[in-house]
């Protein structure tokens, strides 16, 4: 999101600059020819379209916000008794207040998305560096192509793969982890069998967000200034030192942007979580156990069909919370990027 905005802003600036330069051409110097005229018109049309597109996205955002607030509103006005009854029905009697209900869901959402990012990030940066600086030209083109292709796979496919292939095959591995690393509370057993646990979901989400992060960081690394890299090498830096000196600092804000894109996708992911995770309702940091956590998005999808009108309003309210979390994540990413860029 953030880098798209950035690109749009740059494009808009470039366009304005272009328009500014073009203006003297239209001056009554008598040289105005047909070609320039139609160019000016095309310019106006293009500016109109671009501005329209920019406004449209703002309108869409406003409409979504308005929808969430309006639809969630009924859950907070009116009968408190009815609300707590609806929450008890949604949570199977595990919660009666809204924050009590949404708290574990926020925890689960952030935990799973955060773990996915933690696993995907180093690998993605590694792949990107390999493509941009290590792989032979042929291989790097092929790899780039494959990564872009992976980014286009719909999440339901990752979900199917996770639920049907990964879950039965990784059960033994998580069991081994629980037996040998079980003394770390995070990995305390008994491991879920089948492995429909937070660990498995986070792994699938990591695979899912890997291509986006890779794709964006690779583009950034490829733009790192050649001259600085060559200068570093000329001063006797090794390749790793050169990357550390000339490539990574240049790409820092881009890497963060890319991670936030990935995190955003992980936060909102529904199908894969719904298909793989055995949902739970707690603040437990036990990655290998089943039925400890659930994400907001998957919870909405699973509860919606059987919810009554108050229940639907409550689910939309949890959606609003997810919306705010995503907003905060993007905002923080923006802050970090601008600081890093400055």
């Amino acid at each position, binding site marked *: 999101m953030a880098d798209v905005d950035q690109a749009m802003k740059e494009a808009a600036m470039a366009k304005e600059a272009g328009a500014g330069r073009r203006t003297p051409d239209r001056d009554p110097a008598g040289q105005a020819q047909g070609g320039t005229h139609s160019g000016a018109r095309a310019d106006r049309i293009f500016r109109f379209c671009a501005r329209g597109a920019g406004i449209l996205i703002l309108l869409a955002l406003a409409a979504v916000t308005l929808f969430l607030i309006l639809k969630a509103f009924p859950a907070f006005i009116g009968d408190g008794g009815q609300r707590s009854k609806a929450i008890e029905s949604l949570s199977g009697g595990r919660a009666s207040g809204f924050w009590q209900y949404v708290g574990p869901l926020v925890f689960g959402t952030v935990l799973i998305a955060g773990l996915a990012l933690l696993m995907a990030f180093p690998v993605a940066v590694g792949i990107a560096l390999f493509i941009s600086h290590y792989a032979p030209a042929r291989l790097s083109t092929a790899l780039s192509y494959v990564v872009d292709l992976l980014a286009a796979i719909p999440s339901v496919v990752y979900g199917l793969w996770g639920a049907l292939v990964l879950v039965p095959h990784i*059960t033994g591995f998580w069991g081994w982890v629980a037996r040998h690393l079980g003394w770390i509370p995070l990995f305390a057993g008994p491991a879920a*069998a089948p492995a429909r646990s937070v660990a498995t979901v986070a792994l699938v989400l990591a695979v899912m967000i890997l291509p986006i992060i890779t794709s964006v960081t690779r583009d950034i690394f490829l733009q790192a200034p050649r001259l600085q890299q060559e200068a570093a090498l000329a001063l006797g830096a090794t390749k790793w030192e050169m990357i550390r000196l000339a490539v990574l600092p240049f790409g820092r804000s881009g890497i963060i942007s890319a991670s936030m894109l990935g995190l955003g996708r992980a936060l909102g992911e529904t199908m894969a979580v719904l298909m793989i995770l055995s*949902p739970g309702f707690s603040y437990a940091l036990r990655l290998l156990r*089943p039925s400890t956590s659930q994400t907001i998005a998957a919870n909405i999808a*699973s509860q919606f069909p*059987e919810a009554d009108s108050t229940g639907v309003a409550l689910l939309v309210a949890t959606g609003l919370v997810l919306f705010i979390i995503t907003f905060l994540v993007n905002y923080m990413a923006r802050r970090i990027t601008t600081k890093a860029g400055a």
Partner: protein
Amino acid sequence: MHSHVFGRSLALFLSMGLVVGPAACGDNTLPSKGGVGGGDQSLSGEFAGSGASSQQSANEAWIAGFRQDHPQTRISYDPSGSGAGVNAFLNGSTIWAGSDAPLSKSQVKQSEAICQGGTAFDLPVYATPIAVAYNLGDAGLNGPDHHLKMEPSTIARIFSGRITNWNDPELARLNPGVTLPDLHITVVHRSDKSGTTKSFVSYLHDAAGSAWPYPVGENWPNDLGQSAKGTAGVVMTMTQAQGTIGYADAAQTTSLGSVAVRVGTKWTPPSAKAAARVLESARRDPEAREPRRVVLDIDHTTGQPGAYPVMLVSYDVACSVYRHDQDRSRARFAKAWLTYVVSAEGQRQAAANAGSAELSEAVRAMVMASVETIEVD
């Protein structure tokens, strides 16, 4: 082994989205009673129902069978879930609803808005045995010929987390001669609200006594083990790992092992026939006093030999007079439809296609008495 599990899981998974079981095939080959171009032409138009997904395959069979006699009708059944189905019915957007739970008092009251001069009533149309199924394939205990024996209280102790290993002495005592593995028991239950859960829990509540400490409800009452969405999800989860145990429609668990529960002095495995035997002795629930309602009270503690008391009874909800029904086409459809559904022929179709238990003569007579009161002229 793996590819078998994979294929089965894939099939189940796909069925989560498009629940078109084997019922969908072969429906059209029913013998037509009216002959070519025959049947009752007086009933025509589009008629919609929605509700319990448990009734889905039975409804497919019924729609095909009903259309043999009423070729001018187009009928749809949306398996949106019991709650959603009853809500749609109470909004007046469907003619009948399928529901795994009888109507609540407030739902009956609400139905005055759509049923003219009266309230809606629920009739049992579909009953199916619920298997307590397990996956001990590596120990050679899966398949339709293997049934571990369990007391109701044993099942309750497993599903409340007090028996946690398959080599527990209690299981060994009940199953002499069977080598039980040293394996952790993973309980698998439904994550969504479900009539199956409610039926299973009320069986434990009635039959297991103090061994089952939880109240009866549509949500699973504890955080034990794993949960999965829908029957297909539960069965898939069970097939994916050894040592799992769960409950699901018996027709869906044939590749797993199923528990033979203690009834009287005998051990009875799940079957449609054994469930039908319990239906024979089912009484009307005295709580449902509103006119025309037929709510069955299943005797979970039956001692009748050959009876299997863990079962789901699903209802159809309808009105005797519909509002906004000047030409009475909705009432005429409801009457004809319910008459067919509870007829011997309709019950046989459901049993053949969905593996359900046929309603007994006595129950069908009670239901027909209510269906007769639907006013069509």
